C-alpha cells in the first residue's frame, strides 16, 4: 500500500507541477459559471439561473469534456515511462507492476477529483448564493452526486487510457487510440444505438434499450445525472424516460464503478503479462 501511495503522490505532484490540476479546475469552473449565466439564453434570459438548470447543462457538456480530459491525462502513463526509459528503472525497484499501475490510477483519480470538486463545486456555491431560485437540500445533493459521478466517469476513462497505454508501444499510437476511444464512446456509440433503434423500427424495445446504454460509461453518467433526482428530471426530458424505477442513482454509480474496475482490471492483466 505504501508504494501505491508513493506513486499516487508523485502523479498528483506531477499534475500540480505541469499545471494539469490548475488547467482542468479553471476549465471546469469557467464552464460551470458560463453555463449558469448563459444556460437560459435560449429562453430569452441571461443571468445566473437555478442550480437545476445549470446541472442539466453541465451534465450534457461534461459527457464530452471529462472523457477527453481523462484520456489526455493518462494515455501516456505507461508508454510514456517506457519511452522515457523510466519504466524498467521503476520496476527494478521494490515495486510491482500492479502497485505502479494502481498508484497511477489513484494519482490521476485524485487530480480529477480535486479539479472536479473545486472547479464545479465553486461554481455550484456561486450559483446557490446568487441564483434567482434558491437551492434546496435535494438539489444540493444532486450537485454532490454530479461531482461524484463526474469523477467516476473521469476515472473510467483514465482506466481505459491505462489499458491503451499498456497495450501499445509508442506514445503517438496511444494518443491515436485514445482519440478513437473518445469518438467511439462519446459520438459513435449513441449514433449506432439510435441507428439500430430506427432500423429495427423500435423492435429493440423499451426493455433492452436502457440496458444497452449501460455499455457506454458516458450514457451511464447521463442517465445518472439527468434522471436520478426529481428536481433535475423536470428539466432533463428524454433521458428520464428510461430511468423510472429501473436504475436508481446508487445502482448507476455502481455501474460507473464497474466501468472503472473492468478496464483497469484488463489493463493490470495486460501489463502483468507483458514482456518489457
Amino acid at each position: 500500500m505504501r508504494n501505491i501511495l508513493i506513486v499516487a503522490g508523485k502523479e498528483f505532484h506531477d499534475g500540480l507541477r505541469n499545471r494539469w490540476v490548475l488547467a482542468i479546475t479553471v476549465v471546469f469552473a469557467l464552464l460551470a459559471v458560463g453555463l449558469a449565466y448563459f444556460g437560459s439564453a435560449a429562453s430569452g434570459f441571461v443571468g445566473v439561473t437555478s442550480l437545476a438548470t445549470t446541472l442539466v447543462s453541465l451534465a450534457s457538456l461534461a459527457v464530452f469534456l471529462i472523457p477527453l480530459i481523462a484520456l489526455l491525462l493518462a494515455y501516456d502513463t505507461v508508454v510514456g515511462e517506457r519511452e522515457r526509459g523510466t519504466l524498467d528503472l521503476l520496476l527494478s525497484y521494490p515495486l510491482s507492476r500492479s502497485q505502479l499501475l494502481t498508484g497511477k490510477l489513484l494519482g490521476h483519480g485524485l487530480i480529477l477529483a480535486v479539479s472536479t470538486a473545486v472547479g464545479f463545486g465553486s461554481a455550484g456555491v456561486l450559483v446557490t448564493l446568487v441564483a434567482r431560485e434558491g437551492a434546496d437540500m435535494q438539489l444540493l445533493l444532486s450537485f454532490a452526486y454530479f461531482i461524484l459521478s463526474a469523477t467516476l466517469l473521469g476515472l473510467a476513462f483514465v482506466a481505459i487510457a491505462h489499458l491503451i497505454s499498456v497495450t501499445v508501444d509508442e506514445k503517438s499510437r496511444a494518443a491515436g487510440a485514445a482519440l478513437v476511444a473518445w469518438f467511439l464512446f462519446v459520438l459513435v456509440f449513441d449514433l449506432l444505438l439510435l441507428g439500430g433503434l430506427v432500423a429495427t423500427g423500435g423492435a429493440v424495445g423499451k426493455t433492452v434499450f436502457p440496458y444497452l446504454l449501460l455499455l457506454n460509461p458516458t450514457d451511464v453518467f447521463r442517465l445518472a445525472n439527468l434522471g436520478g433526482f426529481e428536481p433535475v428530471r423536470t428539466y432533463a426530458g428524454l433521458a428520464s424516460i428510461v430511468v423510472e424505477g429501473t436504475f436508481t442513482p446508487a445502482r448507476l454509480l455502481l455501474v460507473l464503478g464497474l466501468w472503472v474496475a473492468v478496464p483497469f482490471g484488463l489493463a493490470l492483466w495486460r501489463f502483468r503479462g507483458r514482456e518489457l
Partner: protein
Amino acid sequence: MTPPVRLENLHKRYGRIQALGGVSLSAREGEVLGLLGHNGAGKTTLMKLVLGLTRPDSGRVEVLGRDPCGGDARGLRRRIGYLPESVGFYGELTGREVLRYFARLKGIGRGASEPLLERLGLAPAADRPVKGYSNGMRQRLGLAQALLGEPALLLLDEPTAGLDPDATRDVYSMLDELRRRGATVILSSHVLAGIERHIDQAAIIGSGRLLASGNLEELGRRAGLGVTIRAGGDWADERRLAVLAERGALVRRRSATEVELRVPGAIKLEILRVLLAFDGIRDVAVEPPSLEMLYDHYGPSTRPAEAPCATS
C-alpha cells in the same frame, strides 16, 4: 563463496529474434565486470534478466543468492542499483524531487539523497527542473539514484553513452570508488576506449552469445596477442630496428625518437634485454593488449550495421 551473479546457459527470444543463446557467466564479489559488445548484442537483455524484469526461456539466474523473479524479489531489489541506458526522468520535477521519489520507493529516508547530490556534483542544480539538465547531469542523476541505499550490486547500462570527456571521467572515477568500496558492478558498453583501466573482468558478447570472458591479462594471453613495447630514445640507426625484427618483433617507427614493437608474450623478455642493451634508450613502456585489440580478436567477425533488436 557463491558469486553475487551467476548465469547458467541462458536462452531468451523476443519473437523471431534470439536475444541470448546459451550464455553462462558470473561476476565475483567486489569486481567490475564489463559486458562488451555492439548494439543489439544482448547486453541489455542480460541486465534485464539479472534484474528480474524478464524471465529466461531456459537457463538459471541467481543474484545475491536468490532468483530475481522469485517470491522474495522485492527484498533483493533493495540491494541492487540500476542505471538504464539514456534515462530521461521526469522533466517537470527537480533533481532533488526525482531522487527523493526513488529513495522513498527503495524504502530509505529522504535524507539519503542529499549526500548523493553533493557527491555527484548536482547540489547546485538540485532545485532546477530536470528538463533543463545536460546529458551529463542526467547521467549523474541516474548514477545518484543507482547508488541509493548503498547497493551490493550495481548494473550500469552504457553509463558513458553520449557523455563528453569530463562527464565520462566523472563516471569512471565513481566506478573506481565503488570498486574500492567493495560493490560488485556489471556495466555494459559498446565504447571500448578508456574503459579497460576500470574493469576487472570483460565478457565479450556478440549476437546473443558469450564469445570470451576473463580478466584482460588472461584474455590477452589466451589470444596470443603479446604486448606492445614503446621505446623512446635514439633511433637514428636503422640496423637496430632490423635486429629487433629478426628476433620476432613487429616494428613500427612512430617518430625519430620513438618506436613501437608488437611482441609475442614468449619472447617479451628477450626483446626487452636486446632493447635495453642499445645505447641511448631513455624510456621503455610495456603495455598489455588493449581492449580494442582483444575485441577485434574475440569479437564477432561480422557486425550488424544496426541493432537488430531494440530490447537488447
